[in-house]
Structure formats: C-alpha cells, structure tokens
C-alpha cells in the first residue's frame, strides 16, 4: 500500500501505541506468556480467548487505570473488557474526554 493520509496515519499510530501499551500490561501485570505479535487485537479476554478470570480482570483494570491515569466506571468496564480492541476504544474515548474537558 502507498503511505496513508497523514491524519489517518496519526490516528492509527496513536491507536497502535495504546494497543501495544495494553499488551505490555498483559505480559507484565498478568504475566501472559505470549509474544506481543501473537496477541490478536480482537481476541476475547475471557473464556475461549485469553482465558482470563474475574481476578485477572480486576488486575488489568487497576493496571490500565494506573498506566493511562484514568478512572473507569464499573458500568463501562464490563462492556469494554471484551477484547483488547474494545479496551483500546475505551481508553481512547476517555483520553478524548479529558482533552475536551
């Protein structure tokens, strides 16, 4: 592919940085023993995906809040903790809210 339009590339770079940062949390905080390139962005965090349980979810929540300096409300967390991508969506939305405020 030829180079992407500048604005799109900027948005995607920020998304990929956030995704990589969350993968780093999975390997550091949750001791996930998988190479980063082998963690798919849409893989479910629970059950048939990465197999996390409720304790893992709590650890990940704390790690994400600390890493990104965010406070995540309970009602949005359950919905966002489906996959890495949905977690990235939440982090990006919260960051945008902070900037707007």
């Amino acid at each position: 592919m030829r180079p992407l339009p500048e604005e799109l590339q900027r948005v995607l770079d920020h998304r990929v940085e956030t995704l990589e940062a969350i993968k780093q949390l999975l390997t550091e905080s949750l001791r996930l023993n998988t190479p980063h390139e082998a963690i798919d962005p849409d893989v479910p965090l629970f059950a048939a995906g990465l197999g996390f349980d409720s304790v893992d979810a709590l650890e990940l929540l704390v790690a994400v809040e600390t890493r990104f300096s965010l406070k995540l409300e309970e009602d949005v967390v359950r919905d966002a903790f489906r996959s890495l991508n949905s977690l990235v969506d939440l982090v990006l939305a919260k960051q945008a809210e902070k900037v707007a405020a």
Partner: protein
Amino acid sequence: MSEALLDDLLALRTAAGLAHHPDTVALWLRGPAALDAAERLLPTELFLREGQVRPSLLLSETGVVDAEVLVAALGEDLLLLAEGPGASSLRARAEHSCEGLEARAELDAELDVLSLSGPFAWEPLRAVEGPSVAGLPYGHALHRAESGYLLRTGGSGEFGFFLLAPRAGRDALFEAYGAPGEGPPVRRVSLDALDHCALEAGNFSARADLAPGLTPLELQLQARVSWHKTHPAVAALEAHRREGFRRRLTSFVVAHELPRGALVELDGEEAGAVHRCSYSPSLGFYVGTALLELPVAHSGIDALSARDAGGELRPLRTVSPPFLRTLSFVVHPQRNRWAERATLTPPPSSRVPSPQEAR
C-alpha cells in the same frame, strides 16, 4: 434475508433455538497416551482437567485452518468435535497422530450432534436433562443422564450447548425439546442462523469464515496456537509471520449490503476485500468482516469504502466486535425465567456506532 431466517434469529436472540449439525465429526481418542496423540494432532497446548472443553483448530502443515475442533476431557478419553471443510479428514489425521503411541482414534458414527442456544436455553435444558445441568460452567462437558454428552460452549453470543445423543434417539430428543411447557418455545433453527449470530457476536464460525489459504494469523485465532509447541503447523505459522502476513480479518458496519469478495478501497487504492456482510435485524444495519491490509486492519477507520452489487461505492467503518449486546448478558440462569422475561431490562443492543452515526 428470508422470513425463516428472520424467525430463526428472533428465536435465538429472545428465546431458544435447536439446531442439527449433520456434518460435525465426533471422534474419540482413547488409551493411556490419548493426550499425547491430541498434542501431536492439534496446535493448542491441552491442559485439560476432567470435564473441561477447549477450542482448537485442525491445521494443514502450512498452517491453513481446515476445521475448528473442540476437545473435551471425559474420563480417561478425549472427545473431539470438528466442524468446517476439513472436518472429514479428522479421522485419518488422528490415526496418524496415534502411530507409535498407546492411543487409538475411533470415529463415533453413533453420536448425533445438536446444539441449543438462546438467552433462555437453560430452561428447556433443565426440563429435559434434569436440574444438575444448571451448574455446568462455560467450557465444560458432562455425561448426560440417559446417554450421550452435553458441552457448554457456543459462539452465538447467547447461552449455548452442544447435545450429543445416539442417532436413534434424535427424534425423541427433538420431541422432548419441542414439547410446550413453562419455558420458552424451542424453535428448530438453521446453521445459517447460528453463523449469522456468530458474526454479530464477533465469534469465529468454521462453516462461514473458512476460505482457502487463511491461517490463524489472518483470522485472529492465534490464541488457539501454542507458540512454544513443536508442531509442523506452528513452525509454518512462525515462518508466515516472519515473512510478513498481509491481511487481517477486521469487523465493519455499513449501510448497504456488500458482496463477498468486493474490493475495499482507500482513496481509490485496494486495501482489502469483503469477507462476510449481512443485515443485522437486531441492529437495523449491515455488519461484516473484511480481510484488510495490516496498516488499515484497525478499528475506528471511516475512510474505507467498497462497491455494492450495483457498483455504487459505499462507505464503511471498521469497529471492534462484538457488534451487539445480547439478552444473555442480563439473564441469570438461576434467577430469570422466560415467564418473567417482561421484568428484565434488555441492554442497549448496539455496541458499535451505526453507519450513519459513524460518518
């Protein structure tokens, strides 16, 4: 979308649906080295406790996905259920994996495979199978009271179970689940309906998603591969990744139907191809997946478009699956009954922006 398919989807999303899986292959690995044979056969590391079920894949030596395999540890044996275009090769491959081991592969032609799915699937299940099934956790299996096996799995986004019963008892089982009672009506549903639900739920369906040449890297199924394992397909996948795989399955929403294979474009340049696209009656717009070039295989992009069957360029937006929240999200099997469904507050169905909102 046909009326029958719409009715099937309504049943699956609001009550319960029973489907027959005639092409699903059931095979036993037996003997003291059954687990060793399974480890040879499959790319997934199988740490299985008694009664546990784990999803895996049947891969070619080049790493292409031939079928989806569920592995259940039942007593000293392993039960393998395979779905997909390559499922019929399971027996030959399993026999090959048993060579030199104290293990044998036995195709179970007597077991018929049915599935029961839906937010209130628990009720008819309890009524037919007995109250002991109520505590069966996700990803577990048990031997059923009469004969056959029950696996709690499912990819529809609703509560889901595989029922394995002797072929001779299939009609009686359909009759038992179809008998009117206090629970929800149980509709006979098609596999197409289950595949549609899997798409909406962001889950893999071997029947609908497999295509020649696709590996776990393109299909986002790497969690089913153990990268520490010595396995010919794993080695091939590592090489495929090193050489740089080009495309990844990515979900999108769109206001118009797009044909399979339609080119996805970015500023007039090819950026991928539509894999699946279907109208979601639950959401009121089209949902789909596309194999997109890696630089744009990300959620949140609204600069892509593809041509519909009439040649019109239609904008699409990539999103993070699942597309919707299902009623099963709020149904508690021990507390919520079909008869009291009006007291439940369904979640807002859409998890993604509609194509109109997105633009």
